[in-house]
């Protein structure tokens, strides 16, 4: 018997079960607690038999298949849903998120993207442009600020375009936005719909960061007609270097890993700056505050306007996008050949203090 039999809700949520059971349980709880009830139904793709952690007649489970995107496409076709969500195990939907999407009045074929809050330790941060909007060219440049779970993918538009691309099982939502976002309108809603983590990609658990980085690089390469995108390049190099820390090496390999992983952290931080990650002033978690998403959808207050944001949305000297203040003035005042000599000297100075051998 199909798990989708009797499906009636506008939203189908497909959850890939995590081997860390508490993650899946917390995600499911944030879904089944959405009001009004009945907006969404959930299918859990299980990696092991047993209880999924939440008792609800709107949650069903099937064994995960190797081709999980193909499996998802089958479920979407059977369900007749309007939107489909692909949250990750670290996403937690905020109260009112689903109602906010359904009540938007978006066109039948439109996808909807929301912002998200990112938990960083015990602090919370915003990510993306302010005010929030769907910026296709930011994604095309590889600066992805949209958590996959915050993309309400229009099911009819998705299936008409061929479904998910099986080449990107760990970047399905990003690839879909690149594929459909230029030709078809994507509605956006100011205000977060979920709280998640960013390592550095919002909504991607740390364990998936390298896989996701590789796949988004490949997707961006394809959609940029085989020219590397700056954002994915920055993130890919940073993530791969940073994740060397996870393994034990010996001798020269360990020294190289130490140098790379330290540099990787700096690159990852630069990527987070570029996608507009800004810590909230009060440091509180949106989920803890339990603010309705409808209230957060109003225009952000003036006192949150950033002063100096090193992001792709910041205006200023195109050649010094990531620098501000004194350095920008010095560069503008220094002849280019002299500036290049100074930059090489600085690199040599740094290499002297951090050699590989």
């Amino acid at each position, binding site marked *: 018997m199909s798990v989708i039999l009797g499906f009636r809700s506008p939203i189908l949520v497909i959850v890939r079960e*995590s*081997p*860390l*059971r*508490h*993650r899946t349980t917390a995600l499911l709880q944030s879904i089944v607690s959405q009001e009004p009830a009945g907006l969404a139904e959930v299918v859990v793709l299980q*990696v*092991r*038999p*047993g209880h999924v952690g939440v008792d609800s007649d709107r949650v069903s489970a099937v064994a*995960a298949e190797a081709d999980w995107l193909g499996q998802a496409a089958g479920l979407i076709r059977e369900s007749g849903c309007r939107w489909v969500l692909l949250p990750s*195990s670290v996403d937690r939907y905020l109260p009112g998120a689903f109602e906010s999407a359904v009540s938007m009045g978006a066109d039948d074929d439109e996808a909807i993207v929301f912002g998200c809050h990112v938990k960083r330790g015990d602090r919370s941060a915003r990510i993306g442009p302010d005010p929030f909007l769907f910026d296709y060219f930011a994604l095309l440049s590889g600066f992805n600020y949209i958590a996959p779970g915050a993309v309400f993918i229009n099911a009819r538009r998705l299936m008409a375009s061929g479904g998910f691309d099986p080449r990107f099982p760990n970047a399905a939502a990003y690839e879909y936005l690149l594929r459909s976002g230029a030709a078809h309108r994507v509605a956006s809603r100011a205000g977060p719909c979920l709280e998640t983590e960013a390592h550095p990609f919002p909504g991607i*658990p740390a*364990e*998936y960061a390298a*896989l996701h980085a590789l796949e988004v690089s490949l997707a961006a390469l394809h959609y940029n007609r085989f020219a590397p995108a700056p954002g994915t390049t920055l993130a890919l190099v940073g993530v791969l270097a940073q994740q060397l820390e*996870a*393994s*034990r*090496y*010996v*001798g020269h*390999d360990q020294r190289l890993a130490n140098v790379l992983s330290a540099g990787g952290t700096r690159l990852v931080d630069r990527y987070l700056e570029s996608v507009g990650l800004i810590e909230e002033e009060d440091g509180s978690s949106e989920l803890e505050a339990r603010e309705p998403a409808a209230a957060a959808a109003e225009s952000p207050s003036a006192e949150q306007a950033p002063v100096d944001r090193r992001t792709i949305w910041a205006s200023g000297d195109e050649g010094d996008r990531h620098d501000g203040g004194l350095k920008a003035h010095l560069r503008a005042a220094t002849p280019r050949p002299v500036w290049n000599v100074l930059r090489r000297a600085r690199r040599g100075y740094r290499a002297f203090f951090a050699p590989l051998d």
Partner: protein
Amino acid sequence: MTAAAGGVAPWLSVVVVGRNDDFGGDFNGRMMAAAKFNHVNLEAAGISHEYVFVEWNPIEGKPYLAKIIAQQLPWWHRRYVVDRKWHARLSANPRLRFMEFFAKNVGLRRARGRFVLTTNTDIWFSREVLRALTRLRERVLYRAVRVDLNRNIGYDDMTFSVLEHPESFLRSNVLTRDYYANAAGDFLLMDRQTYVELGGFNEVYRESKIHKDANFCVHALRHGLAVEVLGLVYHLDHESSWNNVMHLYGPGHREAPFGRSDWQWDADYDNEPTWGLAEAPEEGLAPGILFLRCP
């Protein structure tokens, strides 16, 4: 496809060691879960095998783990319990609680498989290792990369999907020159004849169990064996894992219960012909369990 006692010798002997000491927290639970998983998958792969367990320095007053195995895993083929007096006689370090590689030598001596895998009780075999086990050759030291998994995934209802899942991953113990010895104790596979010719693991040095696995890799390579890496094996992280305790106990780990680490493990060795308690009298303890008495 397992070999019955006294019947045709199996293709593979799997030798594991331990005692009923709750090592790393819930040692017995992890052991039973891993053994069940591997046994089922070895059978499914059509690999005739026997499981050999050696209990070393059993704890006084606690049931033998060998008996617990007999109750919970009745398919388990052979079990040995080594008299505590052997540990007292052989150990040169009063802090050393468990002589892992002496215990593995006991199992090695008595294994009947054409190939012998010495491994540990909390190791799950990957799909590629299981596939590779059907096409082994003599005089090759087979190794595997140990991937440590997040302990919070638990071990019940384990599946390949869980083992291979990115969110299960904790760290990888990569293999590098010259000896490919990282986490070697969790996977050392060789034909039995060569294992016996090499004399098993080092019984000359008796103060520690640490780096005895790497020392064996040195020993094997110095005797001209080739090294091949078959794939991954998975290890559930726990408190007492080397990666979690190696920063404790000060330089050289001289106060550690597993023995010191600052010995010359890259030197070769030559065991006595009686290695592996070859001449220890064996007495029946219970059905399927032999007791190696210390005279």
